């Protein structure tokens, strides 16, 4: 049997624990934090690598972002991906989810055939979870979101559990797209040797021109976006009372609050 052709979409994001926000301007200072691969996308990559190991095939990772995102692609190669493509171009910058999805869908079309596309459930910065289903729609293929279990995969179909609060079982015809949760697996760590090998790996770099056969440049980036951020505010925690109890009277105080509130429900 010929193996599966798997595509994994990964995004480089700032480490959310470290990134700083300017309360005055509402600006996100991306340079304040090291960049890493979106954690959820590592679960998507792990799922792809497991399928490849079990059934044979190739794993291609695609990322749209600035030049620095190469490091996330190299990390994916170190973990076992076969091929990595970076979509980078000033004309791709400032994209909302639909413009992002158009670029990614065009890149997948350019690759030619594929069987399975894997995405993270969402990104820790954009935090929409929209890009995956949008890519599926643009490619005209079925998708399942919040996949927490991969039950079966065969030449032409995949059976998955989708976590919608209640859990549902779906069978999708391939090619299909899945967005995966953190429950699906535990991502492997690359070995030092693999990291060194990946350092030298070639990353293919594509610009808007490379995608022009499938999508016009004016449908990409800021120009192709259908939403605009008009303002960003940092929510303050100041509206909380912030009363601290340390001593003996804490039990009584908290009980008092609970009793008056619970009685009201």
């Amino acid at each position, binding site marked *: 049997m010929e193996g599966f052709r798997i595509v994994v979409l990964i995004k480089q994001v700032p480490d959310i624990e470290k990134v700083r926000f300017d309360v005055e301007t509402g600006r996100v200072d991306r340079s304040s934090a090291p960049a890493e691969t979106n954690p959820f996308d590592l679960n998507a990559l792990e799922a792809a690598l497991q399928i490849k190991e079990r059934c044979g095939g190739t794993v291609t990772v695609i990322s749209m972002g600035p030049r620095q995102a190469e490091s996330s692609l190299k990390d994916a190669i170190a973990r076992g991906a076969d091929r990595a493509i970076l979509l980078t171009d000033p004309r791709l910058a400032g994209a909302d989810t639909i413009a992002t999805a158009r670029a990614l869908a065009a890149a997948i079309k350019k690759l030619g055939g594929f069987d399975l596309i894997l995405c993270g459930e969402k990104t820790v910065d954009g935090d929409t979870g929209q890009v995956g289903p949008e890519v599926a729609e643009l490619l005209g293929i079925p998708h399942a979101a919040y996949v927490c279990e991969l039950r079966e995969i065969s030449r032409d179909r995949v059976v998955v559990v989708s976590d919608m609060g209640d859990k549902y079982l779906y069978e999708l015809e391939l090619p299909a797209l899945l967005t995966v949760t953190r429950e699906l697996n535990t991502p492997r760590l690359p070995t030092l040797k693999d990291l060194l090998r990946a350092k030298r790996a070639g990353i293919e770099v594509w610009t808007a021109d490379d995608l022009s056969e499938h999508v016009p440049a004016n449908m990409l980036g800021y120009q192709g976006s259908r939403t605009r951020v008009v303002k960003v505010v*940092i929510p303050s925690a100041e509206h909380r009372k912030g009363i601290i109890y340390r001593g003996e009277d804490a039990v009584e105080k908290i009980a008092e609050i609970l009793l008056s509130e619970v009685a009201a429900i």
Partner: protein
Amino acid sequence: MSGKGILVYAETRESEIHPISFELLGKAREIAEKLGLEVWSVILGSGISDKASQLIHYGADRVYAYDDERLRDLNVVAYKSVLVDFVKETKPEIFLIGATPWGRSLAPRIAAALDTGLTADCIDLQVSEDGKLIQIRPAFTGNILAHIETTSKPIMTTIRYRVMKMPEPDPSRRGEVIVRRPERVEADGVKFLGKVSERGVNLADAEIIVAGGKGLKKKEDLRILEELAGLLGGVVGVSRPLVEEGWISKDHQVGFSGNTVKPRIYIACGISGSPQHLAGMRDSGIIIAVNTDPSAPIFRHADYGVVADLYEFIPRLISFLKEVKGHGKGVVKGA
């Protein structure tokens, strides 16, 4: 089609309307008054036509009910195809969908098919002075709030559960119900095979949550929190590490990769207050935190902080509440 409209997707689960749909109708009415729109609602499913009048009571002027056996199960491609055709025909100005897992899977497919903007997981909608819809949503794991405008039509947005006020239903409200059968149901490539498991606990609807984190030393100690939750008529939530340890199922997890909750009271015990945890509970009514470390970030987000060992504090709180209850002072429900 007469006037212009704001459309609300009424989400159904096994023929029942999800309450988010009523919340959206409440918000839609408010925006409709400001922008001079009608409120429309669309509901899909099998045997759901008789539910349509509820949507009128909650604020819809007109309800389209697509009642068809082929729409019985939640099939994202089938639902998408019917809704895309519907939106192309009726051309709403604004289209609101609940940011439930189902809504967040369905909405982006529709937006991509219609080539329109979609704003995810909003917590507020406002109308600006010049009559534009401003959509407000958390991003960067809840660290920022972005104000977003859409430049295409319809303006599509998914809205978080329990952030909009639930309107009072008015059974005397009149409106039109139009029952339809879809011309086309494209269900290509997706087969619904059934429900694997029910959600064990419903955190999203909980009014009181007693949550535990890594301050707990072993699985069995969750009982202490269960006892307090039981006494208060609440449920137990946890931070992510406890789920990773396998101590409790994922439906109890609060946070960025778990549930977003908005109880009246959230009691965080032995939880440090990571950005990922805060992202799921920062909008709770009253936040109480119990932690041994006075510098724990959770205290900056709490109304009442108790610097104490949860193993001492919570059992004492439980006995105190029981004693009060025994004396009939105050009401403690659910014990």
